[in-house]
C-alpha cells in the first residue's frame, strides 16, 4: 500500500467518524435531546469510522498483497504457448525473470524479446490493478459507511456493536499469539521426531561420544557420527554450575545489602542501575570473555604450570556468572523487600542483631522468592548462547576439569545449524533434538520456580 493511499484512508476514516457523530447529534436534536439516543454520538462516530475502515483497509491490503500475483497470472496467460506449457519448476523461474525485467524503467523497443515485453506488461498491469483496487476499496468503504449513516436512529445500539467488535479483536489477538506459539513448538517437535528416525533416543540420551559432523558426500570420511549428548549436557551443567557458584553468593549478599542496609536514597539510585545491568546484551559479555578473561586464565595457568585451554569452561562460566549477578540480586531484592516490616521489628524488639534478624527471620520468609529467582537465573545461565559461542569450545570432552575446554548445548546448536539451509542430515536435525532438550530443561526449572513462588504467596496470604 503506498503511503499516500494509506494517509488518504486514514483521513477518510477520521471524516467518517465526524460524519457519524454529527448525524447522531442531528438525530438526537430532532428527537428531543441526547438522552433519547441509545449510545453517545461518538459511539455512532466510531462505528461509522469502523464501517469505513474495516472493509476499505482489508480490501486495499489484499489488493496490495496479491496485485503482483494477479498481474503475473494475466501476463502469463498472454504468453506464447511454448512458454506457458513449461514444466512447473521452469515456469517458476521464468516468472522470476519476468518480475526482474519489470524493474526496467523504459518501455521496451519493438524488437525486444517476449520476456522483456512481458516484464513491461507486468509493471503496467500491477499499476492498473493497484489503482483499481484502491479505488474499489475507497468506494466499498464509503458505501458501507454511507449505508450505516442512513441507518442511524435513536434505537441503534452502536455502543454494543462497538464493544462486541473490540472484544472480538482482543480475542483474535489472543488466538493469534497462542496459535503461533504452539504451531511453532510443534514444528520443533516434528523435526526432533525426524532426528530420532536417524538416531536412537537411547544413544542420544546415554551415549558418551559427541561427534556429529558426519560426511557431507560419499567419498569423504567425516566424523563417525556419534550423537551421544552426555558430554554436551555435562559441559552445559559444568559451565552453569561455575556460573552459579560465582553468582549466587555475590548476588544474594548484594540483594541483602540493598534491601536491608542501603539507605532508601541509595537504593532508589542503584536499583534502576541494577535493572539496567540485568538487561545488558550478552554479546557484550562475550567480547569481554574472549578478550580479557580467556587470556587471563591462560596466563594464570602458565604461571602455575597447569595446562589450560583458552576456551576453558572456567572462563565461560565466570563470565556467565558475572552476567547473572544483577539478575539474581534484582529479583532476590524484590523478594526480600516484600517481607513485611513488622517481622523485622518483632525480631529486633526481642533483641536480635541485624544479621540475626536477616538470617533467621527475613531470609527464611523470603526463601521461596529467592529460590525462585535462583532457578530463573539457572535457566538463563543454561540457555545463554552468545557468551559460550564466543568463549567456550566446540569439542565435546567428557571430563569435569573446568580448565579444559567444554562445549554446551547452545554452542552445538549454533554450530550445527548456522549456515545450513537444508534439514535432511542428522547433524542439522540434532540441533533440534538438543533444542528440545534445552527447552524441557528450562521448562522444568521454570515450573518448579513458579510453583515455589506460588506457594510462598499462598503461605503469606494465610500467615498475614
Amino acid at each position: 500500500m503506498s503511503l499516500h493511499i494509506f494517509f488518504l484512508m486514514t483521513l477518510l476514516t477520521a471524516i467518517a467518524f465526524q460524519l457519524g457523530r454529527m448525524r447522531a447529534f442531528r438525530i438526537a436534536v430532532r428527537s428531543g435531546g441526547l438522552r433519547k439516543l441509545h449510545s453517545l454520538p461518538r459511539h455512532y462516530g466510531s462505528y461509522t469510522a469502523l464501517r469505513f475502515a474495516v472493509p476499505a483497509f482489508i480490501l486495499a491490503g489484499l489488493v496490495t498483497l496479491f496485485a503482483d500475483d494477479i498481474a503475473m497470472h494475466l501476463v502469463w496467460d498472454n504468453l506464447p504457448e511454448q512458454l506457458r506449457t513449461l514444466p512447473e519448476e521452469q515456469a517458476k523461474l521464468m516468472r522470476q525473470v519476468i518480475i526482474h525485467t519489470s524493474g526496467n524503467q523504459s518501455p521496451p523497443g519493438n524488437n525486444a524479446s517476449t520476456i522483456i515485453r512481458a516484464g513491461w506488461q507486468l509493471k503496467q498491469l500491477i499499476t492498473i490493478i493497484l489503482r483499481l483496487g484502491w479505488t474499489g476499496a475507497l468506494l466499498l468503504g464509503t458505501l458501507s459507511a454511507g449505508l450505516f449513516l442512513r441507518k442511524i436512529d435513536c434505537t441503534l445500539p452502536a455502543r454494543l456493536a462497538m464493544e462486541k467488535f473490540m472484544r472480538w479483536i482482543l480475542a483474535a489477538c489472543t488466538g493469534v499469539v497462542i496459535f503461533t506459539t504452539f504451531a511453532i513448538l510443534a514444528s520443533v517437535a516434528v523435526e526432533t521426531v525426524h532426528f530420532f528416525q536417524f538416531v536412537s533416543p537411547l544413544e542420544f540420551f546415554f551415549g558418551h561420544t559427541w561427534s556429529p559432523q558426519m560426511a557431507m558426500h560419499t567419498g569423504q570420511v567425516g566424523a563417525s557420527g556419534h550423537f551421544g549428548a552426555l558430554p554436551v549436557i555435562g559441559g552445559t551443567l559444568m559451565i552453569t554450575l561455575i556460573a552459579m557458584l560465582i553468582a549466587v553468593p555475590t548476588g544474594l549478599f548484594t540483594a541483602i545489602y540493598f534491601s536491608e542496609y542501603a539507605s532508601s536514597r541509595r537504593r532508589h539510585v542503584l536499583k534502576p542501575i541494577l535493572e539496567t545491568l540485568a538487561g545488558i546484551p550478552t554479546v557484550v559479555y562475550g567480547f569481554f570473555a574472549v578478550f580479557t578473561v580467556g587470556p587471563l586464565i591462560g596466563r594464570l595457568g602458565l604461571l602455575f604450570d597447569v595446562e589450560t585451554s583458552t576456551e576453558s569452561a572456567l572462563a565461560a562460566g565466570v563470565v556467565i556468572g558475572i552476567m547473572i549477578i544483577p539478575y539474581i540480586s534484582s529479583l532476590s531484592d524484590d523478594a526480600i523487600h516484600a517481607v513485611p516490616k513488622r517481622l523485622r521489628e518483632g525480631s529486633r524488639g526481642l533483641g536480635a542483631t541485624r544479621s540475626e534478624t536477616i538470617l533467621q527471620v527475613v531470609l527464611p520468609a523470603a526463601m521461596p522468592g529467592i529460590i525462585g529467582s535462583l532457578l530463573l537465573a539457572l535457566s538463563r545461565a543454561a540457555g545463554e548462547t552468545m557468551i559460550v559461542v564466543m568463549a567456550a569450545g566446540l569439542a565435546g570432552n567428557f571430563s569435569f576439569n573446568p580448565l579444559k575446554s567444554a562445549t554446551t548445548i547452545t554452542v552445538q546448536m549454533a554450530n550445527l545449524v548456522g549456515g545450513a539451509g537444508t534439514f535432511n542430515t542428522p547433524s542439522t536435525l540434532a540441533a533440534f533434538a538438543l533444542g528440545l532438550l534445552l527447552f524441557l530443561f528450562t521448562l522444568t526449572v521454570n515450573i518448579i520456580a513458579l510453583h515455589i513462588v506460588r506457594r510462598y504467596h499462598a503461605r503469606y496470604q494465610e500467615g498475614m
Partner: protein
Amino acid sequence: MKNFILFLALLVSATSCFAQSQRRNISIVGSSTVYPFAALVGEYFTRTTGNLSPHIESTGSGSGFKRFCAGSGLQYPDITNASRLMTSEERATCLANGVTQIIRMKIGRDGIVLATSRAMPKLNLTLQDIYLALAMQIPDPEKPQRLIANPYSRWQQINSALPNVAIHVYGPPPTSGTRDAFDSLVMEKGATTFPLLRKMKKENPAAFKQAANRMREDGRWIDAGENDSIIVQKLKTNPNACGIFGFSFLKQNEENLQAAALNGYFPDSANIADGKYPASRSLFLYVKKQNSSMVSGLPAYLKEFISQRASGNRGYLVRRGMIPIPDREQRRNSEIVKSMQSK
C-alpha cells in the same frame, strides 16, 4: 484510549505499506577460505557500480554446494564459493533440482596452512608427522601390520625433533572444502608412507579412506566451525594450539601467527603458486547462470572479481593473500564473463 486504538491501527496498517518484494541483491554462500575475498570484491563492486551489496555467508564448501544445488530461482544462492571441485554426486543433485547451467571459474590458488602462535617454536613437519598426529588409527610402531588407536599426545612422541608440546589442532569440519583438500593432500599422502596403508589403498580403497581420513575424536583434533577468524583468535591466545586454514588468514595475522613447514617448504606465494608447498589447491566460484537474468549485477560482480585490479598480479585480492592464477587461466575467465554479459 482512543489515541491508543488509533495508534494500534496505524502501526498495523503501516506494515502493509511494505509489500513483499523479490530479492534484488546477489546471494553468495560457500567456502570460508574464499569468504574474505568475496566480501572484498563485493565492497569494490558496490562502491564502483552502485549495485546493492551482495549478501555473503560463510557456510563451508559442502554446505554451500548443498544450498546452491537445492534449486534455481531466487530462494537459492546465485554463487557458491568453493575450495574444492564439485563432486559428481553434487552435480547430480544440481541437475535433479533443475540447476543445469553452472559456470565454474577458477579464481586463484591457496595453500592450507598449519599455523601456530608465535610463542610456539617453529614446526617443521612431514606429511607423515601430521598423519600420525591426527589420524584416529595409525599403524602400530611395533607391529606395523596392524592398526591401533592413536597413542600420541605430544608432538615430540612422534618425532624427537619436534617440540615437547601437546597436540591440539583446530581444523575444518567436513562441511568445509578445506577439510577435503586437507584429507587428500596431506592425510592420504602421509598415510601412504606406510607400506601397510599403501597396500590397503590398492586392495581396499574404502578401508584406506577410513584409515587415512578419519580424524581422532579424543579432543586432540577439534572440528572448528566455518569461521576461520575464530580459529585465528583462539591461536593468538593459546600458545600450544595449531590451526588449519587458508593462506590469507595467515597473511593477515603474520605478526601473531607463524606457519609450519610441510616437507621442508614454508607456505609463501612462490611455493604455493608452483605447487612446491604440498598442501596447495585451487579456489573456485560456481555461478548459476540461470540466475543472471533474475538478479542484476551478477555479471558485473564476476567482472570485478576477475578484473586486473582484483585478481591481477598486484590486485587487492592478491595483497590480501590470494595466490593469482596464470595469465592463460585469467584470460579464460574473462571470456566466460564476456559471454555472460553479452547474453
